[in-house]
């Protein structure tokens, strides 16, 4: 082995080692962030913190209204966004092949790339301004707009994985296309579609920017969809930028709750799809 060969081998070993180091650092960053959240957040967690509504500085208080608000917003956005997203996915995979389908696919991809803050501005312009007040409904619509393209594209991909012979078999038995789609193709792809839906829910449960001027936030428990509503993320933001140590501690505890939800969904999805992908 001559000199230049040795240099080439050393070079190769160093560079491949560096790629492993990059991966190690990324995983390290994840573990540092997660463990720091757990360490900071666990101290302020209590039953009272999880059920109480916010109080002035020095009097404790909790995030019960924010947890409930986030759940209401998630439910609202799922009710609006999931059916729409699944229908668009069905259209892309089963109906709209060809040029029109490509236009719709392009539009859906465009929606995916829109910064969530712009979605917030849009919903403010078309819902909050005409209604003249912030509302849980507007927040739910903003989150639904973020959900739809995610659900649509995963649904499309899952439907395309269903073997063609299944469709042909059902059609050959005399079933019309709509029955084939609803009765054979969608059930076959149902686990995948559910996975996409869960990931979309996890994604929007961490959204803050589109809620700032749609759902706005509130210090009370929600009573109506037609008024501002609290959410975990906006609460975390407001507490994080406040000057009070007590609220900072509460922000970390609220983050721990939020991360449990988000990571819980992600890990569950991973566990459920382990064998398929």
């Amino acid at each position, binding site marked *: 082995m001559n000199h230049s060969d040795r240099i080439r081998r050393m070079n190769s070993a160093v560079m491949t080692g560096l790629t492993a180091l990059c991966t190690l650092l990324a995983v390290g960053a994840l573990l540092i962030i997660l463990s720091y959240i757990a360490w900071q957040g666990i101290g302020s967690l209590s039953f009272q913190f999880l059920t109480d509504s916010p109080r002035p500085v020095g009097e404790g208080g909790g995030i019960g209204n924010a947890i409930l608000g986030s759940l209401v917003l998630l439910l609202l956005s799922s009710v609006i966004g999931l059916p729409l997203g699944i229908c668009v996915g069905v259209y892309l995979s089963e109906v709209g092949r060809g040029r029109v389908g490509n236009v719709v696919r392009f539009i859906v991809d*465009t929606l995916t790339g829109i910064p969530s803050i712009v979605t917030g501005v*849009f919903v403010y312009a078309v819902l909050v301004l005409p209604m003249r007040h912030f509302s849980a409904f507007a927040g739910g619509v903003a989150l639904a707009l973020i959900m739809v393209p995610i659900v649509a594209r995963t649904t499309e991909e899952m439907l395309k994985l269903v073997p063609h012979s299944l469709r042909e078999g059902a059609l050959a038995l005399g079933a019309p*296309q709509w029955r084939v789609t609803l009765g054979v193709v969608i059930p076959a792809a149902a686990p995948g579609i559910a996975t996409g839906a869960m990931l979309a829910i996890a994604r929007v449960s961490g959204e*803050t920017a589109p809620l700032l001027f749609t759902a706005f936030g509130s210090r009370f428990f929600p009573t109506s969809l037609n008024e501002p509503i609290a959410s975990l993320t906006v609460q975390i933001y407001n507490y994080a930028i406040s000057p009070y140590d007590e609220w900072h501690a509460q922000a970390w505890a609220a983050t721990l709750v939020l991360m449990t939800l988000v990571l819980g969904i992600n890990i569950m999805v991973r566990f459920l799809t382990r064998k398929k992908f």
Partner: protein
Amino acid sequence: MSAVPENEGMNFVGQGSTWRRVLSPTGNTGDAVFRVLMFGVALLMVAIVVSMVVALTVDSMPSIRQFGFNFLKSQRWDPIKGEFGALPFIYGTVASSLIALLISVPFSLGIAIFLVEQAPHYIARPVGFLVELLAAIPSVVYGLWGIFVLAPFLRNYIEPALASAFGWLPLFQGSITGIGLLTGGIILAIMVTPIISAVVRDVLTAVPGSQREAALALGATKWEMIRVVLVNGAPGIAGAVILGLGRALGETMAVTMVIGNRAQISLSLFDPSYTIASAIANEFTEATGDLYLSALVELGLILFLVTFVVNGIARVLVWNVTRKTGGVGRAA
């Protein structure tokens, strides 16, 4: 001959059945209803994007009429005097995104290369999942972590070291607070790394194995073989980077919380800055007066158009590489 009227008759029937075929190729009424319904929902998506452009444009008209192109060139952002110029925000957005790419691109490439070319299957899968989890952490959580962990760390260790080593550069002069352009860029870098590396993984996976075998057969070392693979996937990698850029440009909460939010253009990376997205997040609810609000909406319109173009370019680049192998890909 009676062929002419017959032909007309055929045409008439033909046209009628063209419409029916569009609605329902099978001639089944249920199919027609089903297809119209699905098409209606798809049309709704088109309507939403169109109305987004229209609504943002209409609401930013007062500002567009008042300032015209000067909105993009002016450095003054003075809500009290009613002067609005977007240049400081454009600078802050571009600068923080470039810092983010500068840091995250080498890391993302390294991660993707390690996971695709080197790690055995039983390591690549769980580790790949962990890296993707970085993308699952909400923006506001990164912001919280940025304020209380990253900013003090940069203020106490990294920024003083940079200032003493490269202090002769205007980039590293100025007061050290831990809150500023550099902190925003680093937070963004952590946030876009999982996105870029996921797309690069798809791109590298799409490079045919024969390329690797050919390189190795010619006596290339592992790293030389990887370079061949990288050259093959170059357009797709460029697409991945641009996709990361699109994400960084529009990222809001984390940046808002650590960048300092001051509308100024300063060469120093330590100084506070402001991005388009954080200006909207910060000032939208307090905007008094139609002109102020409309200037903020115009910022939103700019952000929409820029991310639209950037994402479009990225998608074409990535798609050109991954479609050859029919890879479904997470490259959204």
